[in-house]
């Protein structure tokens, strides 16, 4: 069944009138191609990072397949459904975040999981990565844009409350990303540049104050960023080794499977958060550049698709989700390069681990659904 036939059959089942001419494909070929390219590239690098352990590789391939299915499911859901259910989803997520703080399961020193013993265990923060932009877009979509101050404040609250709950778990990385997703909606909705400028300035001035709100381990990560040698065997080890891995890769890299930093285990977390260092070491500047260009293609296509969406809600959601994806990639690479403190953000679609891939691809499924909204409109 080709993509187009698939679209048609979905339209048939939705009970809506079949469009007069084949309009926008449900699965955007260019976005899909770029995503598949990133996934394929990521699997090749992972093959090296896990030291050719096929079992791990198969597990990851299975997770990614699952994530692609999630994307398809997200893509066929009508944008109206998203609009209708956004508040409910958001409230549910928020309730679960409070639940995590009250009865959550602790692992690795952070309380991030909700568990129904023997049944399921998951991170509500993953759900919020989608629910927050949907909710903020829902709130702003039928208000006059650019938003007025009151609306702005409500939108900010909708963003920052869940972000704050997540930071308290503590999971600073995800908290910041979720705040970013909500803020992306607000900025796309036309928040005056002047206000953005003030906000950035105010944040910069308040930065020293945040120092006192941070946990000790978070402070040490910031100290480490500026002076990794202060604790070379402890906090500084990761960043020293990742910079060494990337730097020693040079322009063309040491060759796949030839990276001494990653293959001899000097590079920690080489399969997960620090996998970009494996690319930098084994495939060099060229290898990282290819990945960056693929990411840029995804962002460009996603943003373009969002501009084509027919409703404000659809545009805001599609644009924000695309930008969030970019922020993921940027924060991860900047962190591994020693430009940002170490926060737990995986490299999108490349790092080993399934949860983030499922959320990301479901996000792109929503982007596609929003883009294809015109299919439904044309019917009227």
């Amino acid at each position, binding site marked *: 069944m080709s993509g187009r036939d698939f679209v048609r059959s979905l339209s048939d089942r939705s009970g809506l009138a079949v469009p007069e001419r084949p309009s926008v494909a449900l699965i955007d070929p260019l976005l899909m191609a770029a995503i598949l390219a990133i996934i394929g590239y990521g699997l090749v690098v992972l093959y090296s990072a896990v030291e050719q352990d096929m079992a791990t590789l198969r597990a990851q391939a299975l997770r990614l397949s699952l994530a692609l299915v999630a994307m398809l499911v997200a893509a066929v859901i009508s944008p109206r459904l998203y609009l209708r259910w956004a508040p409910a989803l958001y409230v549910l997520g928020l309730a679960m975040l409070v639940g995590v703080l009250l009865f959550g399961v602790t692992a690795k020193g952070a309380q991030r999981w909700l568990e129904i013993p023997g049944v399921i265990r998951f991170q509500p923060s993953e759900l919020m990565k989608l629910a927050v932009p949907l909710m903020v877009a829902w709130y702003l979509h039928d208000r006059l844009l650019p938003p007025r101050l009151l609306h702005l404040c409500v939108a900010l609250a909708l963003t920052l409350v869940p972000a704050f709950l997540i930071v308290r778990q503590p999971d600073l990385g995800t908290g910041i990303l979720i705040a970013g997703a909500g803020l992306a909606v607000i900025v796309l909705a*036309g928040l005056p540049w002047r206000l953005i400028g003030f906000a950035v300035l105010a944040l910069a001035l308040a930065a020293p104050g945040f120092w006192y709100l941070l946990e000790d381990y978070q402070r040490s990560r910031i100290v480490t960023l500026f002076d990794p040698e202060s604790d070379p065997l402890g906090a500084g080890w990761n960043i020293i080794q990742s*910079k060494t891995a990337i730097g020693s890769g040079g322009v063309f890299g040491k060759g796949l499977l030839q990276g001494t930093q990653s293959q*001899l*285990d000097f590079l920690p977390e080489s399969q997960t958060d620090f996998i970009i260092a494996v690319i930098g070491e084994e495939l060099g*500047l060229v290898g990282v550049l290819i990945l960056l260009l693929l990411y840029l293609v995804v962002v*460009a296509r996603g943003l373009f698709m969002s501009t084509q969406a027919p409703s*404000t809600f659809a545009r805001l959601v599609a644009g924000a989700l695309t930008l969030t994806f970019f922020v993921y990639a940027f924060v991860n*690479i900047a962190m591994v390069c020693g430009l940002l403190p170490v926060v737990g953000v995986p490299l999108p679609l490349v790092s080993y681990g399934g949860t983030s891939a499922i959320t990301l691809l479901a996000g792109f499924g929503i982007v596609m659904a929003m883009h294809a909204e015109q299919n439904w409109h044309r019917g009227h």
Partner: protein
Amino acid sequence: MLSVRGDSLKDSDHERQLYTVRAVALFFFAVVGVVVLLARLVQLQVWEYETYSVKSDENRIQLQPIPPQRGLIFDRNGVLLAENRPVFAVNVVAERVTNLDGLLAELGRVVTVSADDISAFYERLGRKLRPYEPVPLLLDVSEGDVARLSVNRHRLPGVEIGTRMVRHYPYGELFSHAVGSVRRITEEDLAVLDPASYSATAFVGKRGVEQFYERSLHGEVGRELVEIDARGRIRQVLRTHPPTAGSNVTLQLDSRLQIAAHAALGERRGAIVAIDPRSGGLLAMVSNPSYDPNLFISGIDTQQFRDLSTARDTPLFNRATHGQYAPGSTFKPIVALAALASRATSWGETIEDKGFFKLPGQERIYRDWSWRKNDSGGQGRVDLRRAIYRSSNVYFYDLSTRMEIETLTGFAASFGFGANLAVDIADARPGLLPTPVWKQGYKGETWFPGDTVNMSIGQGDLLVTPLQLATVASIIASRGVKVRPRMLLSSDKPLDEFDGEAQAEYIGGPSHYDWEALVDAMEDVVHRGNKGFQQSGTAFAYIGRDIGYRMAGKSGTAQVVEIRQGEEYSEEELTEYQRKHAWFIAFAPADAPRIALSVLVENGGGGSSVAAPVAKEVIDAYLLPRLAAR
């Protein structure tokens, strides 16, 4: 398409336009972000590539030094005096241990782990350089412990057994002064040693042969270029440069003679040095009391070390090479030869010995050693031969006044007085040969005729070591051939420290007849007996009655003028430590000597009665089997 909410109109096209501008702007920011990342990557991968490339190699490539096998030390019969044996250490890799205290407690149930071991372990743990570095917990465990640890291996994750070779001295304290020993390298040693060649070495020769031949015994360090992973495990060996073992050396020492000499001295404080006069080879070197050098290798606790270093009997002190004593009458043959060489006397000349001596115009009386026992007024007519076998002080008092003091000291210097003649005992003390120049410079006093008189019987400021007196015995035995004492017999490789054989030197002055007559007189010391009152050699009564070969000897009894500094004694012990030192020098067979020696018994009393029997026991042990075999 317009929609209405509240009182404001919502302009869809305007919103779309606004959105598009925003999307383009944010895309522009994304591009800026990518450019920032690229700039950082270019910085790391292009500009700083060299730095990180080196860092990455430093991570994985390690130059591991391989310790060389220390050269073995044998005695002249091939008996091992110093060997290397494996020692097992228990190391802990902290990264593989989840509960360190729990593991140490668990280890304590398998082998003995003291609180000191644990605190030393944590100290070393704090100094480790890389993750997964094995940190020593116990430095020396028995093979039984190793077996027990292996059985319990599954309960002790992160525990490793390390093996290394360390020095071992199978004879313990018997050779500790002669062969010396290695000690753990200290901070001060590191300032002197080449850090590269000692990078894999923990011990360095600190005494005796081990010190002198350190460079040759140590060998050349090897190197192994290995690739390691972050856990410190060796993944592959990239290049190997094997170490070169140290030279094996064979010493002149004869362990059987050493054992005999040690036994002859028994519990008494003192020293014995035996030399083969034909080669200068040191056949035995005993200093008593002694210590077990292995203590310094397996680890000596503070209390043990304090006991050893502060003991009144100074077991760490090598009396044979470092103990300096007045030679007493053993110096008389030197005075005799000096006088003969300078024609101050001859074998035929006699003097009247009244039992005391006075310098012209002085009231002070210099007594003969026999003064108290004999109030008959001396030994009567005494010639040089009798002055030696009866050890007449008066004869030598008188003789010394007929020579310039410089003649005597100059001649004594050629026998090695005031100098270290040994080829390969670098730190042997030179003793003291006082001269008018020395006295003026050191004491600020002029040389009095009385100083010469005192010196003629080996008293006053004159000091010698047992090694020096054994050398004197050896030179007389070889009738003036100045053979320098040495430890080394041979080695399997040429040694840096040994600069070839020097041309044999001779003591100039005395005639052939003088040497033979002196040896005859010294034979009389031992063998002349049953000749009536005051006619027997001084040592005859003690060793001369039952002797199967001709021995030449000379006794000496040195007054203890000073108690060694830094020591305090109770009243009772004061007397013991103030008693005279007993000396005996000897060689045999007298006509073709094969062994020459000196014996010192500290505070032993009379040389003939105390030291001579020791000398005979040692020479018996060496000579009798050889004479019987002939």
